[in-house]
Structures are given as structure tokens and as C-alpha cells.
């Protein structure tokens, strides 16, 4: 890959603040997060439960669930010709971006599939929402072929179908006449062609997900799928429209280790094929070492350290990262955990949020929030130890 493309920025999260207004008080879930994703890289977002990893990824797709509110900040997404701020987009524009430019893979594959729809229907929904034009074009090509071969009567029917599909292709919004047409029995047979086209496309997608015998899986309901299979379907759904950014929110946490390895391999391969960028949220440092190019470590709503994967394991700089790596259980070594517990974010500790648990805490840590310092090229740490 060329250097210029690799270093291009895709997503820039600037000074993001997210609060949750609960009955118990205001939870400051995200407290000034800065993240930069380059085109084609995999950024790992690690941290313990409740540190704001998931909220960060949900903010990027602008789907923070209530009572969460994005207080301030900018999320800049590089489009083909311009940069847009996701937080300033209208709902309709966001709906187009979701799925088409940014899509998400969720933690629990079974939960992410609607139990009442078959695999084709679910994956097909994403296709219909974003790639209707392309599918209609394929149907039209097929019709063109049929028209040239058909007799007079059939040709008339095919020409009617052609008109319908041309209209379908050109209307982006819901059209009343089309939805009325699709409700009339027998007349709505014309949808069969589109449905076939969707099936073909879903089969193709499932094949790229390395699902054996995709035709059989097409008409299965989520409860008939195994965990690994369900996660493959979810990934197929997310990748159906070739998104440029994939948010993977702990996609392998609920799977057993062998399936986890397969899914990781799959993600790695797909990334190379599709040249998309991945934000990989996880708490598993092994997974990070496996697939990430760079790692951002989060603690209590802050990104405390961000650097490439190699450095984070060789030369961790923030005390939290150091403690986190120490806490990985290894055979023949005494297990060391981080003392204290995760602070509640309703009244987070003043200053550096890690100072009550930090072994290297200084008086200033309790007073002021540390600045982000670059200690080496591309290695940022938010700690008072590294003041310039």
C-alpha cells in the first residue's frame, strides 16, 4: 500500500465529552477523548469495564443511548471530497452514513440479530437501504436479456417490470405508488427479481465470511445458528455496503476461544481485502497484540496512552498501562492486580482520574488534570510524569 493513502486521516475525534444524566447524578462517561484514525489501520481501544470504550464507539456512530448526551466535541469524518462533522449532521444524513460509511459489529451476535427474521431478510435489509440502485441496475440488465428472448405477451409483462424497476432505481425516498403496488397480490410478483438479486448478493457475502453451505444458511433464523456463525452473519451485515470504517465492539468476547481465533483471522483477512479501517474495542490484550496496528488505552473516560502495538507491550509509559500489563496472569509468576477499584464516574477523582490507584502518584496528580504529551513520535501519554 502506498504511503500517502496509509497516512491519510479518516476519522478525527476531538475533545469529546459525553454525560449520562441518571437519577443518581451526572455520569461523566467520556471526559475529553481525542482519537485519530488513519485510513486502513486497525486501532485497538482497550480498558476495563466502564471506562467508556463502548460509549466512544457509539458516539462515533452518533447513537449514544439516552440518558446519554454528547456534550461537546467534534467527530470529523473524511469523505471522498470533504470532511464532515458527524455531530452536526441531520438525522437523514446520518442514516445514510450509518451502514454505508460507518458500520458496527456488536458484542453479542445473537442479540444483534432480530429473532423474527431470516438471515436473508436481515442482511437484505442493509442492502436494500444502501445498495438498492445497484441491485435494481442488475435486475434491469437481467430484464433486458429476457426481453430480447421473450415472446410478445411476456415481453409486455417484462416491459412493465422494467418501468417499475426504473422508477424504483430513481426514487431514493419511499414512494407511495411503489409501496401501494407492492401490496397488491399477484402484481407484486415483480419483487421476486429483486429478491433473487438480494439472495445472490447475500450468498456472495456469506461466502466471503467463510460460511460453509451459504444457501442453507439463507433461510435460517438466528436461533438456528451457532454463535460463531451468527457473528459471521453480523459481520456480513456490517460489511454488506463496504463501509470505510468498521466499529467492532468486542466482537469476540462472547465466543469460545477456537471460534474467537477464527473470527479474528476472518476480520484480519477481510480488512486486507476491503481496505477498510477498524476501531477494535476490547479488553483482551491478547486480541490487541493479534490484530491491532495501534492501541489506545482508556481509563475512566480518558484516553491515557496511545501508541503502536509494539511499543505498548515493550515500553508502556502510563502507569495504568504498566499496571494493566503487569496484571496479565502468567504461569510461574505471582498474580498482581491493580489495587483499589474502578472509580464511579458520577463523582470522578479530581485531577488525574487514576491517581487514587496509581503507584507513582504525586501531589500534583490530585490537583490538576494532566496534559497529553508526546514522548516519542506517535506516542502520546496523559500523565504528569512526562511533563515537557
Amino acid at each position, binding site marked *: 500500500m502506498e504511503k500517502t493513502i496509509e497516512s491519510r486521516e479518516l476519522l478525527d475525534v476531538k475533545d469529546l465529552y459525553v454525560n449520562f444524566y441518571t437519577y443518581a447524578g451526572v455520569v461523566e462517561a467520556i471526559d475529553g477523548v481525542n482519537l485519530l484514525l488513519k485510513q486502513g489501520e486497525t486501532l485497538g481501544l482497550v480498558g476495563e469495564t466502564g471506562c467508556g470504550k463502548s460509549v466512544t464507539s457509539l458516539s462515533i456512530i452518533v*447513537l449514544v443511548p439516552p440518558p446519554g448526551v454528547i456534550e461537546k466535541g467534534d467527530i470529523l469524518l473524511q469523505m471522498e471530497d470533504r470532511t464532515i462533522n458527524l455531530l452536526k449532521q441531520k438525522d437523514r444524513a446520518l442514516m445514510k452514513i450509518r451502514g454505508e460509511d460507518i458500520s458496527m459489529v456488536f458484542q453479542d451476535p445473537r442479540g444483534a440479530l432480530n429473532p423474527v427474521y431470516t438471515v436473508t431478510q436481515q442482511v437484505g435489509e442493509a442492502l436494500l437501504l444502501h445498495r438498492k440502485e445497484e441491485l435494481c441496475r442488475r435486475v434491469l440488465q437481467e430484464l433486458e436479456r429476457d426481453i430480447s428472448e421473450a415472446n410478445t405477451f411476456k415481453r409486455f409483462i417484462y416491459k412493465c417490470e422494467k418501468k417499475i424497476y426504473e422508477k424504483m432505481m430513481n426514487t431514493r425516498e419511499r414512494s407511495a405508488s411503489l409501496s401501494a403496488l407492492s401490496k397488491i397480490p399477484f402484481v407484486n410478483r415483480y419483487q421476486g427479481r429483486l429478491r433473487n438479486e438480494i439472495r445472490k448478493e447475500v450468498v456472495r457475502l456469506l461466502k466471503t465470511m467463510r460460511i460453509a453451505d451459504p*444457501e442453507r444458511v439463507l433461510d435460517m433464523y438466528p436461533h438456528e445458528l451457532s454463535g460463531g456463525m451468527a457473528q459471521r452473519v453480523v459481520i456480513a451485515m456490517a460489511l454488506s455496503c463496504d463501509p470505510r470504517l468498521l466499529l467492532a465492539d468486542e466482537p469476540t468476547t462472547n465466543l469460545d476461544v477456537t471460534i474467537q481465533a477464527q473470527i479474528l483471522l476472518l476480520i484480519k483477512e477481510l480488512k486486507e481485502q476491503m481496505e477498510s479501517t477498524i476501531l477494535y474495542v476490547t479488553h483482551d490484550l491478547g486480541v490487541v497484540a493479534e490484530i491491532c496496528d495501534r492501541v489506545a488505552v482508556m481509563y475512566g473516560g480518558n484516553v491515557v496512552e496511545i501508541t503502536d502495538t509494539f511499543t505498548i507491550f515493550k515500553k508502556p509509559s502510563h502507569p495504568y498501562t504498566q499496571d494493566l500489563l503487569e496484571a496479565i496472569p502468567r504461569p510461574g509468576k505471582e498474580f498482581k492486580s491493580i489495587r483499589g477499584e474502578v472509580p464511579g464516574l458520577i463523582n470522578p477523582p479530581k485531577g488525574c482520574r487514576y491517581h487514587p490507584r496509581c503507584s507513582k502518584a504525586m501531589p500534583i496528580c490530585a490537583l490538576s488534570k494532566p496534559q497529553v504529551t508526546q514522548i516519542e513520535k506517535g506516542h502520546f501519554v496523559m500523565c504528569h510524569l512526562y511533563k515537557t
Partner: protein
Amino acid sequence: MKARTESPTIKELKFILTRIKKSPLSIIGIVVIAFFAAVALLCPILAPVPEGQEDPYVLTHFGWTSEPQPPSPEHLFGTAQWQYDIFYGCIWGTRTAFRIGIIVVAGNLIIGLIVGTLAGYYSGVIDELLMRLTDIIWAFPGLLLAMAFVSVMGPSLDSIVLALILVGWPSYARVIRSEILRVKQEDYVEAAKAIGCSDLRVITRHILINSIYPIIIMASLDTGAIVLSAAALSFLGLGPPTGYADWGQMISLSRGFIYKNAQDPLGYWFTWTYPGIFIFTFVLGWNLLGDAFRDILDPTLRRR
């Protein structure tokens, strides 16, 4: 490539059929309701409209004696006060019962669905407003409030229907709201939003389809209960004018004839027994059908 022999729809239908076959009660329910539906359809054949009667729902007087006459070949179930034919009233009353039950339940469903969905999905201020409105209606005993509505609007069949709709929707709204609150937390709703579905699409395609079953069961159980309430209002004289083909009305006509005299205390049994049996079986049928629906539809009860 081996194609599947049957589509999911047909598989589902087969499953429903085996489910129904397993429980005799649901068969009874379906048979009873089918029977009543047939009666309602065949009214003009079963009980031909007497000559000179303009509105088939308004009963004809076969004389003006106030004493009910026992069953005879002309009047199969006997006659009520002022010589109304009980058989004719019961048969044509089936149509009235269906009309009341279905219109009221449909009205309840529509209002309840809209209110409950808006409240559940959009939470916040809209939720508070709509739910307090339902609380206000729930604060009054249903039948009393319905009576009040009817007396304001004037006694008639239409005002009974309208009053029962106004009184009945809050329970639907609350059930649908709580179901939506549960379903909207699910990951697949988030996933649907994440692939770019609009609110309307998320609600109709992903949330409602997973939360509508309790409401359908409730509706079919309610259809019977609504007929009971309508009969009660009718019995109290808040219904259609005297002589309308309505089961509540028929019972109301027999009010003075429950006890005949010391020698023959149950001499007028036919006046209240026949309409009573009709109401009883109709309500029972809907209840059994509701149970059948629950067995079929409730995903938590189904074991494959």
C-alpha cells in the same frame, strides 16, 4: 445445491397446526367462534326477517301482551315481554355482538398502539404526558366511566361502542409501552439503527413485530369481555332503544320475569336462559381462542 423443500412461512403454519391439534380447548374455542361467525353470516336464512319489518335489527312485536310466551314451533325460544321473538333476537344479536366486540377492540388496539408506541419509544416528556393521560382514565372504574360517557352522548349502540373504546385503550397502551421499553433495549434494535434504519422502520420492522404478541392475545381475550360490558350497559338501559337485536337488551327485557310465582318459580326460564347461553358461550369462545393464540404466538411458551 440442495434447495429447501418448504418456505419458512409454510413451516410456521405447520407448527401452528400441530400446536392447535395438541390442545383440545383451543379447538373448542375456534369451533365456538367459527360457529358464531357462521350464525352471524347466515342470519337472514336462520331467522328470516318478518314481512313489514324495515330494519332487520329492530324486533317485531308479535302481539302486545306483556307476559312472555313459552317456546312454540313459531317462536323456537319463546317470546319475551311485548312478544318479541327471542330466537330472532339471539340470532341477529350475534351480529351486534361481533360488531361491538370487533370495533371496540380494534379501536382500543389502534389508540393503544399509537399511544403506547410513542410513549415507549420516545420516552421523556412525551412519555410522561401520554402516560399521565392514561392514568387519568385508569383512575376511574371502567364501567362507571363508560356509563358517564354514554349518558353524556345519549344512549345508543354507537355511544356504547365509543364509550368502551375511550375507557379501554389505556390498558393496551400500558402493555405495549412496557413491551417496547423492553424490546428497544435489545441489541438488534441498536444494530438496525447502526445499518441506517429510520425511526419508523425501526419501530415497525424491528420493535413492534417483537412486542405485538401480548397485545394480540389481550385483544382476543378482551373481545369476549367487551361484549359482557356492552351487555351490562345495555341491561342498564344505556344501550339501543328497546326492541333492538342485542343480547344485553334481551336479558334486560327478561328482568321482570326471573321469578314467576310460588307454584312455578322458573316458569319464565326461557326469557333469560337463551340470551344468557349465547352471551356465555360467546365470551367463553373468545377466552379459549385467546388461550390458543397465546399457546401459538408467545415465544416464551413455545418449546421446539
